[in-house]
């Protein structure tokens, strides 16, 4: 596997993750900066950022909600949770709510099949979801969001 890369290069995956954590998403500006710092063509960087589903090149909501779509979750009422979340948040899968609070996605198995159905919010898994538990969770997030906005 002869890649043109020098082997003392920093790990690009980690760099992109850190950039996303800092800026919320990987903007063109950020890509340009990484391109200069790491001496990697921006075309390649953009290709990498677009390839991995966890990297976002568009602004995201404060809370990124991902619904697990694995068979184990589907078998344990996952579809009901998905429909409920879509209705409750008021956006379709793949979209961000107008107030910038939620982005809703569907994801492949997140490895919580033993506690299905599962969702992830900002990277943290929430398992054994029921409609009631989702309601409680959303209420908590909404309160936290409003508080932060006031500040």
């Amino acid at each position, binding site marked *: *596997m002869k890649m043109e*890369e020098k082997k003392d290069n920093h790990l690009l995956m980690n760099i992109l993750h850190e950039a996303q954590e800092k800026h919320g998403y990987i903007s063109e500006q950020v890509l340009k900066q990484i391109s200069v710092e790491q001496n990697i063509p921006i075309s390649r960087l953009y290709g990498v950022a677009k390839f*991995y*589903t966890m990297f976002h090149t568009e602004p995201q909501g404060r809370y990124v909600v991902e619904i697990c*779509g694995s*068979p184990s979750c589907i078998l344990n009422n996952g579809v009901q949770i998905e429909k409920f979340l879509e209705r409750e948040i008021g956006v379709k899968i793949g979209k961000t709510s107008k107030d910038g609070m939620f982005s809703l996605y569907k994801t492949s*198995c997140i*490895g919580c099949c*033993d506690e299905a159905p599962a969702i992830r919010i900002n*990277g943290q898994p929430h398992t054994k979801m029921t409609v009631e538990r989702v309601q409680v969770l959303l209420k908590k997030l909404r309160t936290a969001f409003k508080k932060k906005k006031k500040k």
Partner: protein
Amino acid sequence: MQILHKTNLEALERARMLGSDGVLSLLERKGLVGRGGASSPTAKKWRECRDTPADERFVVCNANEGEPGSFKDKLIIRHNAETLIEGILIAAYIVGAKRCFIYLRGEYDHLRPRLQEQIADVLPRANLEGVSIEIVRGAGAYICDEATALLKSIMGFRGTPMYRPPNPTTEGLWGRPTLVGNVETLTCAAQAVLFDDWDANLRLFSLSGNIKNAGVYEFPLGVKMSSVIDVARPQRKLKAMSFGCFGGIMPVDENMSITPEAVCKGNCKQGNYSIIFIDETNNVVDISYSIAKFYTYESCGKCTPCREGTIRILNLLKKIRSGRGVKDDLQLLRELAMHVQETSLCNLGQTCGNHVLTSLEHFPEDYEAYLARKK
């Protein structure tokens, strides 16, 4: 559980005493094989990596466990990361690597802070000069389970598989010999080196679906399906089971003994035992549809049959489920699945039709039920 036994750096000590050849012949004698899926003898792979002349070598731990229904690696990282780290260090010591990586899937990022702490704790005590372990953060690409795709991802490229040979063991990261080992394999390696009574026959089973006792269990190879079902405790009468996504959907046969050959007639080398149980209240086509969605989502797009084929399979299943399907669609679905499997480069494409082919073979009545539901 054997996999949770801690080795407390004594395995590394023993490895040093035995020396590189000693450890390899010990692993050979104990019969350790890769647990990621390929079931290749571990000692052979390690030896090949060690004996390839190079100025530098690498060890990579593949913690990109993405197979739906499989969550055994999470258990190990959560409860026995010290032994995993020791396994990586032993591998580094044997092949002569200085720089080691753990490719941790993005979905397990919540486990990263603790894993990082454990690396910082174990590494200085191991006394291996110049050896480092870095965590590479995956970002949601199932395809990076495949070794060549994983290595490309570490090097900062799109994670698309490459043609083999060369294998990563002889030409991997930055053109140097690289040992890629699964989480379970590396943990087992440390345990196999230290414990005299280590049992090579035990495998981790991830059980999930319509059952009460979902979780990770340890069973010997060849265990009867009835014993597994007893432990799993289904909620209702079982109808089918799916071996991960790639093994296909099959009827539940209580007398079947679980070996790689029995699981898919030897067509797929099963090193990864994840069983999703499906009960009688479900239509198998719905499950097949969710698996098809998974493959469409995860196909890397490198080769056309897989990129386009997975979408076409999904669309056909969508059509059938919506009640607009006709009988000919089933034949088309079958042909399409076979075609994609035969013409794809990597394991993802080669197995992405299994769920369609097996469900069509074993549960034609479920498809008929949808066809009869004309709109």
